[in-house]
Each structure stands twice: as structure tokens, then as C-alpha cells.
């Protein structure tokens, strides 16, 4: 399991990477491993405005289903359309080609509430 430094993490197992006020969001290696083979990712409409902690979509694996929660507040500016045809990318490349949405951060202070890679790894350990 990999948890790259420099990303933000949530206790709901999303990761986020900031680039110039835009946050790229996906699910962590741990999350994809727990879900198993992903067969469907339901993503929001572009332009929709989300609050931090609000569900923005759903990921269905053969085994189970899980809500996706936005790590921050802001407007969804892009979603990963490739996941419609290739949802398995979430398993094979969770931090890169398996990204899910890009959100324009409305309050940069919200980033302080997110976990670092180190804190997230501690959190996962506490789950076992």
C-alpha cells in the first residue's frame, strides 16, 4: 500500500492534491484494496457546488458500495470521464489515472483540517 507524501488525506479514505487552488480528488490505495474490483464510479455534474464532507458520488465494487465525500468545499470543475469506460483504473492507478474530480477550493483554511500521509497511515493502523 502506498500513501504518497504531499497529498492530503481524509478519514473517509479520499486523497487530494492541490494545484493552484484546484484540488484533484480520488480514493486511497487502502480504499481501493478494501473495495476490491471497482465496476462503476458515479461522479457529480461539473459546475455543482459541494460542501466539505458532502457526498459527491458513489463507487461500486463487485463486493460492496461506498459513498465518496468531498474533502473540501467548492465547485466541481472537472470529473474523470475515462472512469465510465474504465472504472478498474481506480484499482490499478488510484493516485494518478484513477482520479475522480477536480474541485475549485473556496476556503483554503479547510486544507488544515485534512490529514498528512503520516497521519493517514497512523489512522489506518488504528482501524486494524
Amino acid at each position, binding site marked *: 500500500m502506498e500513501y504518497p507524501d504531499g497529498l492530503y488525506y481524509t478519514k473517509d479514505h479520499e486523497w487530494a492534491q492541490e494545484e493552484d487552488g484546484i484540488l484533484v480528488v480520488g480514493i486511497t490505495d487502502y480504499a481501493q484494496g478494501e473495495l476490491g474490483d471497482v*465496476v*462503476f464510479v458515479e461522479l457529480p455534474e461539473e459546475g455543482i457546488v459541494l460542501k466539505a464532507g458532502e457526498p459527491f458520488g458513489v463507487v461500486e465494487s*463487485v463486493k460492496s458500495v461506498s459513498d465518496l465525500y468531498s474533502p473540501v468545499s467548492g465547485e466541481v470543475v472537472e470529473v474523470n470521464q475515462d472512469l465510465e469506460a474504465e472504472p478498474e483504473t481506480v484499482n490499478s492507478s488510484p493516485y494518478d489515472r484513477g482520479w475522480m474530480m477536480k474541485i475549485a477550493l473556496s476556503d483554503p483554511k479547510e486544507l488544515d483540517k485534512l490529514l498528512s500521509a503520516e497521519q493517514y497511515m497512523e489512522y489506518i493502523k488504528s482501524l486494524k
Partner: protein
Amino acid sequence: MYKTVLCQRHIDAGAKMVEFGGWLMPVQYSGVLSEHAAVRERAGLFDVSHMGEIFVSGPDSMRFVDRIVTNSVCNMKNGEIVYSVMCDDEGHTVDDLLVYCMGPQSWLLVVNASNAEKDYNWISTRVQGENVKVLNRSPEFGLLAIQGPKSVGIAAKIMDIPQDLKYYHFCVVEWGGSQLIVSRTGYTGEDGLELMVETGKTVELWDALLEAGKDEGIAHAGLAARDLLRIESGYSLYGHELDEKTDPISAGLSWVVKMNGRDFIGKAALEKLKPARKKIAFTLEGKNIPRQGFIIRAGGKEVGAVTSGTFSPVLQKPIGIGYIAIGGNHTGENLAVEVRGKEIPAAVCKLPFIKPGVKK
């Protein structure tokens, strides 16, 4: 929690282990989709040692077994197997099981892991003066299932499998100095075998089958793949399509209930039964997966619930099994499954969802 003797093998192979029916079992190894593909196209090896083995023997054993199961066993010959259910006096399902005829005075019942103790208690307390012996010998045996089009050929490399071993038949095979009960049965819809082996030889047999199937691309297969394969093939699973509130007629299992010229526990109730609901199979529009417990609606009105659902890799769409009420003011058409507040249209279809590969 119970462990099979293969537990460490599963962990070493990278399996994700979960609790199932009181047992710690491998839910998946490489991934449910690749394991499913291996079984449909080549071969997969399952540890099903958690299943229960109950032996019934004695002069009255045929008459006794015939009285506790809904299917008739009186015309069975040594080497034949039937699928059946056991009912209580109300006609509700105690368990579903395979009955092996090992001779007129020797019967083997292979039952669900989660029900093994309940079944043993149920069966042994049904004895009414008959001269029979009921033994729960589950701990003495491991059970492996090798399933898929290449599976019989793989097993035949390491043991003498009779070429003419037919579907739902078994034979006793010598292997490595011990005797195996090898049956042409399974829970995947593919051709394959189930091998019952003494517990102490189970690990050795597991390793030997994996080694023998290397060139054919045999894969370890876990419970998640097993569930996916059985849903595509339309097989019931206790705790989903069957339980202590469900009769076999409503469950679409009339073909294992033989009413004529015999008596069995639950017969009187089943004769009088007017089913209030029926089992249906359906595909779902879109890509949301129907899960156990999701509500089925007809014209907005709740008419039933999903008992099993998954995404079929063969059909490339979500599939499900459930129950709907019979009668009322719905036609059984225009059904929808409620998925997180949304009604997703469902198209009723026949079971199995996919054409079976088994050779009947």
C-alpha cells in the same frame, strides 16, 4: 472462529481473509474479476472445507434420509448425488444440501458451513425409533472444489478420474495413499469436481492440484468469486434466497420437492401452501448494483426485496435475484429496484443468467 487447515496457505498466497459462517475464509486473492475469469475460461481452486459432512448409516437409513429431505432418495444408486432441501414441519427451509448415496445403508449429506451444527442437531433429533446412526464428521474432512473447463483434465493428471464420471455422480479415488470422494459437482455453473479428502492430506492435495494446473493457468479462487459465479448461474445461497422463513416452492425449487408416493417432514405444509411471493431474476439498467435488502417496487409500490445481486462480468451489467409478492395489483412488470433513493428500472429474466458450461 474456525479455521480450515489451509488457512496459512491462503494467507501466504496473499488472500484477504474474512469471517464467513463462523469460519475465517479467503474472500479473494488476486481479485474477484480475474478469479471469476479463471473459472469461466480455465480453472479455479476453492477451499470449501468449511462445508459440513454429516453421515447417516444403518439398516433404516434410506427410509430415514428420504423422510428428512424433500427430494426422493429411494431410487438412488451407490455413486449418485441429488440436490435437495430439508424442511421443518411448516415447510420452511432448514438448509439446502447434497445427498450422496454410498450404498443403501450409507449416506453422506454435505451441508452449509453456517448450518452444520444446526443441521446435525435437527437431523439427530428427527430419529423416531429408526435404526440409524447420525454422525457429524465435518472435522475429519477437507473439501476442495476445482472448477472450470480445464479442471477435470488437471485433476486427471494426478489421479485416476473415470472418463465417464457423470454430472452429479461421485467415485472413490486412490490418491497419495488415501481415498478421496470425487464428485462431478460444483457451485459455479462450470464443469468441475469437488474432492473430499481426509483433513491431514488436504494441504498436500491443494498443493498438488495447483502444481498440476500451472500450465493451464489455474487460479486460487475465493468466496467473492464463488458468490459471483453462483449468482450468474442462478444457484440459491442459504441466508439469501433460502432461510427459515422461506419454503422451497416459493424459492423456485419445486423440482427438488417430490410429493408423490412418499412422506417427508414439511410435506403436509407444502401441500396446503399458497405461495405469497415468488423468486425472480432481473437485470438492472445502468451500472448500480442491486444489493441484498434493496426494495423492489412496481409502479412505485413496494412489492419485494433483493436477496442477491452483483455485476456480471459475462453480461457486463448488474444482475439480481429477489422475491416479489404474488397477486396484489401489480403485474410483475414495470419493476424497479430502489438504489439509494432512486428507482432503477429492472427487466425480469430467466435463471440462469448465463449458459452453463456443466456437462449434464
